[in-house]
């Protein structure tokens, strides 16, 4: 379980994350939604110890994340950031193999190889596993990064806008993989999404952020409501039930 207690992050005088508290339940998919600059990425980076917070606590299974041993944490929690400007010439397979680094420190065992294979398979990257990353399209690269995180096989998986650059088919595919990771393997997944419909259809819980504050959090059907979305996005969004999914019509 991830407990976020009264976390604040200041840049200058502005609190970009402002006394945020929440509990992220185990084995579920929790989505962060909110407009640009709401503080979603900052919060995710704080939870994954990539940036330091100014106030508050982040407890992962009861342990403060910034005080946890870095090596041990890498087997427990993984993070994929929003922008990954890696200009290192690695093949897809080499990149995915680095997901096993916390376990093998570079000397891959048979188990590691199997995990790498299955991560590549999950992301349908078999045909390009020996291509260099700089020969891939933006979306293919994004899938390779996600495959690396899957190979890392951590209990907690944090993804910042993983659907960036992806076409519809692969967006759906990734959300389905995440669903399976949560339902079958009990992974706890926190994901930042811009498309509220993906959040609506695939997540168990949603946290709506704006100006560094939590506007509302709760089970998906309590958040995907006209009133809540209006408060978050300043938009009047019509919501319809289609095939038991709540779909937001936000194009007009």
């Amino acid at each position, binding site marked *: 379980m991830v407990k976020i207690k009264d976390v604040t992050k200041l840049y200058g005088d502005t609190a970009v994350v402002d006394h945020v508290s929440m509990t992220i339940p185990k084995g579920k998919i929790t989505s962060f939604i909110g407009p640009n600059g709401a503080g979603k990425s900052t919060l995710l980076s704080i939870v*994954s*110890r*990539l940036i330091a917070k100014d106030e508050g606590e982040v407890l992962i299974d009861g342990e403060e994340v910034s005080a946890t041993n*870095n*090596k*041990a*944490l*890498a*087997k427990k929690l*993984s*993070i*994929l*950031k929003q922008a*990954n*400007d*890696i*200009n*290192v*010439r*690695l*093949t897809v397979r*080499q990149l995915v193999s*680095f*997901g096993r*680094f*916390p376990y093998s*420190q*570079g000397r891959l065992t048979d188990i590691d190889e199997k995990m790498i294979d299955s991560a590549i398979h999950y992301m349908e990257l078999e045909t390009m596993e020996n291509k*260099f990353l700089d020969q891939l399209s933006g979306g293919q690269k994004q899938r390779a990064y996600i495959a690396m995180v899957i190979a*890392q096989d951590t209990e907690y998986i944090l993804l910042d806008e993983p659907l960036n650059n992806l076409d519809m088919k692969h967006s759906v595919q990734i959300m389905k993989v995440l669903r399976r990771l949560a339902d079958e393997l009990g992974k706890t997944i926190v994901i930042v999404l811009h498309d509220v419909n993906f959040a609506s259809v695939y997540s168990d819980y949603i946290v709506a952020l704006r100006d560094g504050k939590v506007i509302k959090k709760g089970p998906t059907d309590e958040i995907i409501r006209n009133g809540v979305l209006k408060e978050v996005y300043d938009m009047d969004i019509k919501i319809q039930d289609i095939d038991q999914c709540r779909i937001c019509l936000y194009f007009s």
Partner: protein
Amino acid sequence: MTVKFKVLIPVLIILSILSIFIGVVPLSFTDIFQLTSQQQQIILVSRIPRLISIILAGVGLSVSGLIMQQLSRNKFVSPTTAGTMDSARLGILVAMMFFHQATPLERMLVAFLFSISGTLIFMKILDKVKFKDPIFIPLVGLMFGNIVGSITTFIAYQNDLIQNMSSWLQGNFALILEGRYELLYISVPLVIVSYIFAHRFTIAGMGEDFAKNLGLNYNLVVNTGLIIVALITSVVILTAGTIPFLGLIIPNIVSMYRGDHLKNSLPFTALLGAVFLLASDIIGRVIIFPYEVAIGVIVGVVGSFIFLYLVMRRSAYES
């Protein structure tokens, strides 16, 4: 890919043999079984030390360049383009001025302290500049190196040490004799450590956040890399002098063919560095025989052309 190893190793062996037989004192292949004592002397005191030092310097400098490019995440950063070499030379000057009786090892330590400080200053500058154009960064490094170099020249001039400094300015293996190159052996364990750290350097090259996510102690890895680079650069400058561009062009060429996973590219970079330096040395020795063109000049000329080519290839690729 394995084909390349099969080619490079025989080439290295052939060049090594050539290197032993080329020189002012004639020595032919048929003499090998009936060497005069003078010939034996030449081989043991001059030719073999020269060969070993070229190989060690070639390996050391290209591996240093590879590590720097990986850690700075910039393909154009190298001991030449980050002030590392210039700082090491300033260190040597300081050692000459203040510690007259310094042993080679002590000189090396002073040179090392200066080169590591210079490199760290450059890395700090790199952190601070917002404009991270891949070509702008090495230009900053070259400017920084030139400033350090000017300070060195100024101090040397004031103290009448210009003559002494010039031997460290231009790489030259002609002066290498038994007893004057052994410091270079320090680079052997350093290259081995680099290979052991290959995975870590590769991960560090993907950035601090990536490294942290994989549980890597980023600062430790970066500092280890920079210490290795500064040590190797110092011993090479102290024994053979400045050899520009090697650490820049060799890793770039290898990266094109073998990618940037150091586990794959490091052995190759090391080997190609040795072959390239050895070939340059042989060219320098035969081109105006019986005189020699200093290797620093040959590598500088060939290297700057390859450097220009790499820069243009990159701009073409980006546009």
